[in-house]
């Protein structure tokens, strides 16, 4: 019994200790010249969806929920965001090669069509990221048109 007490005390101290650690937050105030919106036409209807359903993990600006201040949640989120940005970062989209931009437009359309994105685990926490069929179509058409025009011109 004494032992369990000690172990839980250690864990409690650890849990408190890690609360003082804060991973760098994914928040950038300035809009980069590489931002998708400065390089491509993004209609308001599309932009609204990108912002609510994609930008938290695929841009340099995350809207952090309250629990992001609690460890180990903060680490999990930081990890998630860094993976997401590695795959696709709308803030740095214009810095990609034209070839990679073309690929990314196709992948955006494919991932939305296949219901692979947004992740279901993300939709669980963000109800507004659960896209309707019309919203999906909007994103798919937008991405596909840009993919087609890029591959036609290059």
């Amino acid at each position, binding site marked *: 019994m004494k032992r369990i007490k000690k172990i839980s005390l*250690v864990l409690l101290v650890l849990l408190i200790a890690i609360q003082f650690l804060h991973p760098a937050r994914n928040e950038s105030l300035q809009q980069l010249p590489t931002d998708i919106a400065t390089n491509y036409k993004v209609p308001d209807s599309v932009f609204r969806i990108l912002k609510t359903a994609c930008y938290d993990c695929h841009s340099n600006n995350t809207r952090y929920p309250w629990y992001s201040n609690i460890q180990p949640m903060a680490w999990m989120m930081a990890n998630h965001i860094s993976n997401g940005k590695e795959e696709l*970062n709308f803030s740095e989209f214009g810095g990609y090669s034209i070839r990679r931009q073309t690929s990314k437009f196709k992948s955006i359309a494919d991932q939305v069509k296949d219901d692979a994105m947004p992740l279901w685990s993300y939709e669980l926490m963000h109800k507004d990221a659960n896209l309707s069929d019309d919203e999906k179509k909007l994103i798919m058409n937008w991405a596909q048109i840009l993919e087609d025009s890029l591959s036609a011109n290059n």
Partner: protein
Amino acid sequence: MKKYFAITLAIAVVALAACNSSNNNSTASQTDANKDTTAAVHQTQDTMPAGMNMNNTTTVSVKDVIAAYLQMKNAFTNDNTNDAATAGKNLQAAFINLDTKTLSADQQKTINDITDDAKEHAEHIGANGGNIAHQREHFDLLSKDMADLVKTLGTGGQTLYKDFCPMYNNKKGAYWLSETKEIKNPYLGKAMPACGVMKEEIKQ
């Protein structure tokens, strides 16, 4: 009690140190990313798949790249998602180790542009064994990259065929490269193996 307190403190300090170092890493990479957006684009692509050692690998030629691609293509014609994944990992490694030293600066730029994109597709195909539909989405883009790669580097002596499947992807169609004259469709697999036409014979 004093002793236990000391132990607890020690553990906490160690944990703190460990967490801090990982913390610093992420901060560093983040500032790097902000500093140089092109670097951020490329940095993620340079990780080696497990089992490959950069120092031990001999230089990779276009022939090896084509071999890994054809291995993947043939896995898709057989609807074999796991073999395609294995080939994806091989191909990713081949792209990373592809020797471009003898090329002109211009050609190097072209090839880097292609392999930057292509190794990402190879990586996704390697990581998505079990999801052949998604693997094929990447194979479509990868095949475009391969056709461009061969345009610059040649085929390493073998004859390749550029084939077209008009039905795949909602009749948008998709290309692939093959080593055989006979059509064996990697997009539709065993469901429609003969669907497709040869568009170009690539000799070099």
